[in-house]
């Protein structure tokens, strides 16, 4: 039963993530005064990528991409969706933080195995960026943990139940602002997309990924969108009363990120890390101090 649950939840997350990506493309097209692709475009893309021939350099590439998707799916299973989850767990935040690293590690491994310098540069930037956003992200999470005295997401989400005024976004607005900026970096959207800069490093990590490897990469990205927006909903928007509510809130958060993505230029990597360590971290520290004392 649990296994079937896990499979269903995984498919759900993948589907939601892909449709979000499609809607995101549509929204940015409208911002450019274009018509834009259909909302199911990402599903078409995935199908095409999966069905075509692909190139691999060695077995690490295969292993890495499978590991990346598995890591993100595992992470997703620990995120409660409006109080539901695939199996009984405490959905510990620290577990989620570290599980997400499997995805990064698998991706990093697969693309550096290709031996393309562009890919390696992209990965070195992505990891530098990761060090940049983990700090403010963790400080915000720390604030949530000490105010609830629990590192369980379910507890944090449940503490906001009831009225809309119980949501953490009203209790810790500074934390929300910092989280919004951090989320932009976590999802690799502009202005924090130096690692996949197509014009400089030929889409960075993805440079050597073809066919199904790119497909797995896109699926990983779709699940990571689901996880990151899901965390945000659980942290600041009460976690949702039912799955549909939850997904709508996620979509709202994702669209904010897409809108920011469309209006900002790109930071250089060291500028991005400096920015993340000064502004979101500073705001998060202020929030933490307000909560702790």
């Amino acid at each position, binding site marked *: 039963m649990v296994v079937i649950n896990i499979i269903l939840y995984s498919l759900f997350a993948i589907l939601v993530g892909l449709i979000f990506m499609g809607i995101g*493309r549509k929204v940015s*097209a409208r911002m*450019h*005064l*274009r*018509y*834009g*692709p*259909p909302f199911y*475009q990402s599903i*078409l*893309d995935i*199908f*095409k990528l999966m*069905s*075509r*021939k*692909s*190139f691999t350099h060695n077995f690490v590439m295969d292993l890495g991409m499978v590991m990346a998707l598995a890591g993100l799916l595992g992470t997703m299973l620990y995120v409660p969706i409006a109080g539901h989850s695939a199996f009984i767990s405490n959905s510990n935040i620290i577990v989620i933080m570290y599980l997400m690293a499997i995805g990064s590690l698998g991706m990093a491994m697969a693309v550096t195995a290709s031996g393309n310098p562009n890919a390696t540069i992209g990965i070195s930037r992505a990891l530098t960026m990761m060090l940049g956003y983990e700090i403010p992200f963790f400080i915000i999470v720390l604030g949530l943990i000490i105010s609830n005295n629990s590192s369980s997401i379910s507890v944090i989400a449940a503490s906001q139940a009831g009225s809309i005024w119980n949501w953490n976004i009203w209790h810790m607005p500074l934390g929300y602002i910092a989280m919004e900026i951090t989320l932009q970096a976590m999802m690799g959207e502009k202005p924090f997309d130096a690692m996949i800069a*197509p*014009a400089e490093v*030929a*889409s960075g990590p*993805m*440079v*050597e*990924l*073809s*066919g199904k490897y*790119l497909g797995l990469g896109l699926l990983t990205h779709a699940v990571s969108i689901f996880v990151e927006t899901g965390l945000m909903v659980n942290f600041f928007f009460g976690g949702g009363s039912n799955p549909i509510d939850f997904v709508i809130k996620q979509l709202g958060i994702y669209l904010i990120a897409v809108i920011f993505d469309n209006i900002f230029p790109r930071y250089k990597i060291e500028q991005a890390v400096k920015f993340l360590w000064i502004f979101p971290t500073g705001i998060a520290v202020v929030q933490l101090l307000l909560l702790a004392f």
Partner: protein
Amino acid sequence: MQIINYADEERRQEDNRKLWDKVTAYFRSRSLWMLHYCTGCGAMELPPIMTSRWDIERFGIVPMATPRQADILLLTGYASTNTMKRIIRTYEQMPEPKWVIAFGSCTVNGGMYWDSYNTVNNVGEYIPIDITIAGCMPRPEAILDTMVKLMNMVKSGDAKAFQKYKDNYGYYKANQDKLFARTAPVLESASLKYVHNETEGSEQ
């Protein structure tokens, strides 16, 4: 050498593909990613079709950064011999199935550079081309029309130039070698070339 009408020959035959192939062909036709290898002036015509006026993304066609990710190779103008070498390598790095669109007269018969010592006249002799667009330069409408045509060809399974490249590799390879792997001068006039030698120089 008839190359470009390859697809038309096939169309007359009956569509006897399996259902699965039809489904994949549909998905492929709706998600064509292009690598615009900006060789000549044609690259200028791409921004209009990608931005708000013609918006090619509504057909699922988006630009990609590397040949590994791309389905279509766009040759946007004349190809010099040096560029041709890179085009061939890029083409061979693309995973199958893959399609090539050639822009403008230059890629068909050399266009205004037909008698240049370093411009390839017919790109189709070196790599297989699915569709060419006439004009110098083609208007964005023409490009958009070609894209839609290519989508239909992919859907109906007619766009098979990559298959042809595999089947007739010997022919293409011979043409490529003729262009790149020259071992002797082509014209007799090469003997007129002045060769400077150091001893002569130092005597002066």
